[in-house]
């Protein structure tokens, strides 16, 4: 089934919060998840990231993005950073979500060493991330994200229905 980018982004963000990630990292994951799927990325990568809140690219990659911004100021428009473990699967989409002009992103795998993220920035551009009109996502992924997102919803009670939003039940005036 196809979804809007915002639907996937919002659902993935809620799922990350439901999985136990802090809100800022969850928000960044939401953006990255939509881009990842839009580029044909494997849904398993997203689920793996959500499965281990204590040791996850969802925690590490926002730090890496700040490293990119810092490295850009210090080193110029060619940035190379070392990656942790399997973070290379999501690092490119995190980078693409930055409002920077990117000329190129490349992951270099080196046997026995951490992989490296190479980024070439366009100094003239500060562009919003280009998004596709639609994102395909398998139902199993959506179901799992919904399960995790539901952990952020508060069960409904009659009291919360009456007090929580403060509205009347009928509006026939």
């Amino acid at each position, binding site marked *: 089934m*196809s*979804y*809007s*980018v*915002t*639907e996937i982004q*919002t659902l993935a963000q809620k799922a990350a919060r439901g999985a136990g990630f*802090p*809100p*800022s*990292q969850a928000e960044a994951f939401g953006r990255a998840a939509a881009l990842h799927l839009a580029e044909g990325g494997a849904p398993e990568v997203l689920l793996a990231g959500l499965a281990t809140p204590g040791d996850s690219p969802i*925690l590490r990659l*926002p*730090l890496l993005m*700040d*490293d990119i*911004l*810092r490295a850009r100021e210090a080193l110029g428009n060619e940035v190379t950073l070392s990656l942790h473990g399997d973070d290379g699967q999501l690092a490119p989409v995190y980078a693409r979500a*930055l*409002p920077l002009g990117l000329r190129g992103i490349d992951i270099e795998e080196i046997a026995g060493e951490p992989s490296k993220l190479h980024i070439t920035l366009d100094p003239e551009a*500060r562009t*919003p991330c280009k*998004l596709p*009109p*639609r994102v395909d996502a398998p139902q199993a992924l959506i179901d799992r994200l919904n399960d995790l997102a*539901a*952990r*952020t*919803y*508060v*069960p*409904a*009670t009659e*009291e*919360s*229905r009456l*007090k*929580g*939003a*403060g*509205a*009347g*039940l*009928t*509006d*026939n*005036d």
Partner: protein
Amino acid sequence: MRLSRMGAMFPTRLSFLRVLTRRLHDEGASLTRPVWNIDATGYGHAVYTIRLGGHDYSLVAVSTHLPDHMRTDRVIATAWDSSYVLYDGVPDANEVARIAANAPRQEAGRFTERDLVLSRANKSVRLFNHVVERLRAGQQPDAGLIRDVGYLMRTTAVYGNGKFGIADRALIADRPGLSGPFAAEMLTVWMIRSFTHDLVEHLGGAALDRGLKRHLGIGNSTGLGMAPFLVSHPVLLSNWMAARETALARVRALETLDDSTKSRLRQLAARAAQHLTEWNVPDPAHQARIEALRKDWVTMLAHISGDGLHGQRPLDALMRVSETLSEDAQELTVALLLEPFGELIDGLADCMDDPFGLCPTPVADTGTLRALIERHYDWALALDFDDPGQTRQFWYVSEEKLEPRLGDRYAEPGADRESPLDIARRVQALHRDLPAQSQPLPEFRRSHPDHDLALRRVLAADTHPYAEIRDNLIGAGCLPVDMLRCKLAFFGAAKFDPKSDRWTRITLAQGAPLPDELSLPSADDWWLPIFDA
């Protein structure tokens, strides 16, 4: 930027609906109605089309029967009197059929990237029925009732940006005419207003008086869902406020006013006074505020009518006079002072969007971060979060149709699933956890990932002066309706009619040009409309 001031705001010429109707006027836009498939009982569908910025947009309006017992303004509603989709282009019969089948289902329906906005509206039963009955009897409706209610239907949601499968905002964000904040939503509500006019004329079998019709805007009922948006879009909020404050600074800096501008200001101030007399609400507390504002406005009128516009920097002087009065009077004065100066300030409307989102430049170390917090969040550091009153409320999303709600932390379950709107508390906690000796920021972040949200807010506040609402949003004294009024005023809403501290009704597009009035020179002159029928 405090909640109480946000809760006193009025629409200005920078409000999004005003920006839209100016654009429609400038382009010579024309609204057509290629489909009118409404039966004798008022049910069916219609299609309206307008060209804006080189693109065609169509409103597909669907009218359905709604039993009275199902009519509610709440998000938890499951059926409505009418439903709408703003469509990208001109829909063919298959597309109209698809939308007619899905739009009445709203959140339970499924939409495509050709659908730009999804909305629904319920009748103001007393006015809708009255207008139809009067028209059927060959009479015009009671003018007083139209003045008091102000709309035939009120929308209860206007969804954009990808909800339920509709188009992401990014897909239309660079289109002329739709690039501004909520422009597609404003176009939708302006077109819905026309449908409500056409529907009563169809059912009544006669035309409404033009003046009465122009005074019939489109209502809206808004609840808590609108408030978190302002917190979660700090750059956008800052840009809105910065445009307004820049506009105000420009007019305050004017050294003198010519006679025609003075005359215009006096005319507008008198209009505002009449608007206030026509603004009456059932809630006693809010009615008392309106009445106090009427008295304050007498003071302002005296200055504006007398010598108040003659000296050097007269508008700056007028603002200083307003500062001795209520926040309501100050905010009304701001809106008044902006109104005559379109050439000076209308271009600022192009600066109210946020195409990039929050992407703050990181600082090097925790010492720098500490200094930023102490510079921008002294108000948050001063709060005592050991006082239960300062943490009394918590924001949450109910599993019931995902309706945003507000709970009492000490009396209701669910605080463990709290939405992260507790910015002041988070920034204070971040400040408390900063090491005494400065350390590199990445090192601190690795050991304190929970502080990232607060960290980003602090960095944003350093470059966006109006990014933060400088109040405790979980304190017992937080009134969400203040946030609602701020956002709705930016939309262009007036006649705020709070039903509690958590939701309000408003009127949009009251006095706005009717479709066949868009080309008139006066098409933009509808700030704080008054009843002249």
